[in-house]
């Protein structure tokens, strides 16, 4: 925790600040900025997708977010709160958007979704994000998009 004097003079991000910057970049649909907050070999785990949801932030993460943004061009988020546990920060976030193209085999019916997500960022000693896991209720997500 920095003192007020430090906060006023420093430009580096705290760990929570890094999380906020990630979701701010997400709102701007700026994948380079999102990925740039992680170490080059950082890993990602989209939990509901099982083994196929595991990979590198710069590869799998970039690819999935690109597809998501392409299918939901008004994709947006709200950070509800943070929880710090050791080197991990858990963010409760609401993700929402409107589908305009097919996504992961789900044809577009022009429907909106709003889904509670849990993002867990892990940091190294240099306060760089080294991994991210993302969890959500996939059944609810697909149901909102019209999958019966």
């Amino acid at each position, binding site marked *: *925790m920095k*003192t*007020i*004097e430090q*906060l*006023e003079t420093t430009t580096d991000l*705290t760990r*929570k*600040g890094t999380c*906020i910057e990630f979701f*701010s970049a997400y*709102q701007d649909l700026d994948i380079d900025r999102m990925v740039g907050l992680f170490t080059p070999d950082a890993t990602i785990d989209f939990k509901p997708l099982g083994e196929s949801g595991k990979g590198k932030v710069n590869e799998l993460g970039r690819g999935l977010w690109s597809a998501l943004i392409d299918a939901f061009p008004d994709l*947006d988020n*709200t*950070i*509800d*709160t*943070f*929880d*710090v546990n050791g080197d991990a920060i858990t963010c*409760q976030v*609401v993700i929402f958007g409107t589908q305009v193209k097919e996504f992961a085999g789900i044809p577009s019916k022009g429907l909106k979704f709003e889904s509670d997500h849990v993002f867990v960022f892990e940091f190294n000693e240099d306060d760089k994000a080294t991994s991210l896991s993302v969890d959500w209720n996939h059944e609810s997500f697909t149901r909102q998009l019209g999958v019966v």
Partner: protein
Amino acid sequence: MFYRKIIPATPLQTLVECYYIWECNELMGESITIESPPSGFTSMVFNYGDCYKTSSTDNSDFKSAPRNFIAGQATKTYKLLLEGKIGMIGIVFRPTAINTLFGIQMYELNDERLDLSSVLGKEIEPIQERIIEARTNQEKIDIIDQFLLFKLLNCKGQPNHTDFAANLIVSQNGIINVSKMMEELCVCRRQLERQFLQKVGVSPKYYARIRRISYLCSIMANKRWQVADWHDLIFQMGYYDQSHFIKEFTAFTSKSPSFYLKNNVELSNYLQS
């Protein structure tokens, strides 16, 4: 056990909900655990009794709290483990007040109790010393009143729609349609949410949820945890149905409502009604 809430000086009442003084000369060699649901308020505590421990986890993993600390929004029930002599004076801030007076990014303080000196620097040290030396509770209150009035006079920021929205959520006890509130205030959702993180620590909707649980728990405490009509209470609190209510209550308190009624160890249990 002595516990009293005190109203602050008039100019501070938009920022400070109350002060409290909590004292007990000796706990007869036993330790007591006190739990508190999230209140929606933040605080600053000056401890002149024995130090105590706190836990925000389900498994009562207690850690020593700094002697004098600043605390941000609690997003879950927390517990205090007290031994020996209790002696403290606390400032209960309204949701945006710490950011207004001290410029702290409130998301950094969620569920944290941080040492006052390390957060506020040297300006707080003489205040801490004077509180310890004060001979009466009124002297302690006067010291805090003067300190906060000085901060208020020197504060650069002006209240804006974020302060208004946060205080509106408080006054409505969290029973409010936040999307509708944003429309009526003609504010940009993203901007309000960003400022809420900075000034309150959580999103507006999440803050309303915290505030509603806080209000519900205070109602139950006032009824000495005797709830005659659950359906009426759930309806009054604006929950869709019983299932929604139970899910929400458990998320913030880690207890089912019925378990909570029978087994809570809130401070009110130790005070005369």
